[in-house]
């Protein structure tokens, strides 16, 4: 389907450089590759005794989280601090929004304090697009998860994990397993994998957890875990929100684990060197067995550490301060 939402006019500046990071969908492959290359150069920063670079010194970054999150907010905060930025964490439960102030008023008030970047998590799909539409010219918006729509930095850290372990994308078969219906992570992963030219993207779930026409995003659909895992190079397990099992989507945790839980036996159906990934936090014994989560094929903790590097990359690129930005600008014709 020819999708009409042209978000790149919003996400990229006149020179085709990243200005906001709202969604992976529609971004050119070169931008994704730039993010991964830049992130590669940042991985070592976290391994040094002094874990800081001065790229965003003097910049003020606001973590504006309307949904609770520990992991994502922490990695964004660490990423900003490692870039030497000043970071402000706005806790929505104590913010003016809880008193009835609109999202736009909150944004405009924070912009008036001369902030430079908002990292936004919001329960509504499209919330970061909304903020980008109303952002002051010098302000960048980074989507840290909006409703069920997108979680682009999570997808890019997954791509970095895959690339660092597998090299190229083109010959890979990647399976995403679990609650695709509600997952913003899965949607962003699917777009990223397809843009980076992966061989095949599979989604595996019972029909109640598959959105309508998910094939149109460029996926092959399986409702059997055993069939779907055959020959895959990467297995990405999604978190199953336990509260959803109370509704009509799944009969029980037990049945879900029986049918879709990743055990050592099931994993054996994939390629022997298949990676096991999970965006976290994991529910052991619900979507994944502990022996697999902690097993030799699991790269779950690597994902977490790469998350900081990817977020450093995205933040610095959106501020026009990535390590390669000066070089790229110098190459541009007058």
């Amino acid at each position, binding site marked *: *389907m020819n*999708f*009409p*939402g*042209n*978000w790149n006019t919003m996400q990229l500046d006149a020179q085709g450089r990243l200005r906001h990071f709202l969604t992976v*969908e529609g971004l050119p492959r070169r931008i994704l590759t730039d993010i991964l290359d830049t992130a590669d150069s940042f991985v070592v920063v976290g391994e040094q005794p002094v874990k800081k670079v001065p790229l965003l010194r003097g910049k003020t970054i606001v973590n504006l989280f309307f949904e609770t999150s520990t992991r994502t907010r922490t990695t964004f905060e660490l990423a900003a601090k490692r870039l030497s930025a000043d970071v402000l964490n706005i806790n929505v439960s104590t913010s003016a929004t809880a008193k009835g102030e*609109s*999202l*736009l008023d909150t944004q405009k008030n924070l912009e008036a304090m001369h902030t430079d970047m908002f990292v936004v998590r*919001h329960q*509504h*799909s*499209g*919330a970061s*697009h*909304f903020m980008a539409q109303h952002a002051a010219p010098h302000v960048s918006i980074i989507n840290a998860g*909006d*409703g*069920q*729509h*997108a979680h682009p930095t999570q997808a890019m850290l997954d791509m970095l994990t895959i690339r660092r372990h597998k090299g190229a994308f083109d010959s890979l078969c990647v399976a995403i397993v679990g609650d695709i219906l509600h997952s*913003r992570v899965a*949607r962003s992963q699917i777009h990223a994998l397809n843009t980076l030219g992966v061989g095949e993207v599979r989604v595996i779930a019972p029909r109640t957890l598959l*959105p*309508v*026409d*998910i094939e*149109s*995003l460029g996926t092959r659909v399986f409702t059997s875990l055993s069939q779907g895992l055959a020959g895959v190079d990467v297995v990405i397990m999604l978190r199953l929100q336990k509260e959803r099992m109370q509704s009509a989507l799944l009969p029980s945790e037990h049945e879900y684990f029986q049918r879709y839980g990743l055990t050592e036996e099931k994993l054996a159906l994939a390629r022997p060197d298949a990676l096991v990934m999970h965006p976290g936090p994991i529910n052991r014994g619900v979507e994944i067995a502990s022996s697999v989560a902690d097993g030799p094929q699991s790269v779950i903790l690597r994902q977490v550490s790469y998350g900081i590097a990817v977020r450093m990359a995205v933040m610095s690129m959106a501020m026009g301060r990535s390590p390669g930005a000066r070089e790229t600008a110098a190459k541009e014709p007058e």
Partner: protein
Amino acid sequence: MNRIAIRNGHVVDPSSRVDGVRDLFIASGRIVALGEAPEGFTPEIEIEAAGRMVCPGLVDLSARLREPGHEQKATIASETRAAVSGGVTTVCCPPDTSPVIDTPAVAELVRHRAKQSGRAWVLTLGALTQGLEGEQLAEMAALKAEGCVGVSNAGRPIRNSEVLRRALEYAATYGLTVYLQPRDPWLGQSGFMHEGSVSTRLGLPGIPETSETVELARCLLLIEQTGVRAHFCRLSTARSVEMVADARARGLRVTADVAAHQLHLTEMDVAGFDPMFHVIPPLRTIRDRDALRAGVAEGVITAVCSDHQPHEPETKLAPFNGTLPGISALETLLPLTLRLVDEGAFDLGTALARVTRGPAEILGIETGTLTPGTRADLCVIDTEHAWRLEPDTLLSRGRNTPFRGWEFRGRVTHTLVQGRLVYELR
């Protein structure tokens, strides 16, 4: 101001099959002649309409006027002013005001305010159940006595099928038409747009087609059982059009309407997360839109309405699923309908019939025609006038329209209600 002559206009009245240049004469609020002036007729006002179209005033089956209860959004005075500027001379107001129109006193209040504003006719639908809560029947006989032209639960569900059945039976007792907006209360209850490939991409919870068709099927079976005359409001799917056509072929007394925006927009328009495209029922697929157009052309759907829902600006200034659904649409009803003629969806006569006599027949009122002897509710349209819609120029207090920047051809220059000039384009 009793006698008016409208000269040399291209008179188009689908109900009397008039389509040609005629003079039209009005006296004492009624049309007295088409063509030759009655003997001794001396007009006090003459309107030169050469090169313009003269047609019956539009009858709109659904416009939220927001009064009583939500005057911060709009008032009867502001919205009837907007109505007549768009050629709409009769608006029908659903009962979901605040308080709900479930007592004669509220119906009387609306009638009184409409009379004070003195522009378009305002008709009311009474509530089908008390408070629209779907539990106790409203006092339908009393509402009818106060002038309500039908009964409806607006967009609110009646979950209990026994209550629905009894409500239909009771309405049938008093010869009231029941206006039903089919929407299953569970299917897609947390949705914001059509469930399909676009909602999947956007991660916006979807409203499946079956939300409408499952409820439509339940209603049709109960209508068959009770024999009530029923009207289905705001159809949005191809399957619904088929179901209504089948029901009519079986002899059920059912009619249907569609909102004008549903004949132009689709789910694809939501792709930019623009809350102006947030409507209930949701914009559906291209196939649905084409089937709705065909339904209008073939007469399965005999009315096109505005589904006018003005909102204050803040209501739409948020992420898509943090906004309220609805379009300020009174002033785009005629332009969108005429545009369908330009696009070849159907001919001019059909288009005008669906916004004049078609809805008037559903409401059971005499207007929507230029037949001599009837009330002089009509408008004059400069069909060559090209214009561009800018929300700031809307007369409605609601500026929430997805049609910003759309180019239209055809603009109302004069609107008469009961022979009184209530709008003139300057």
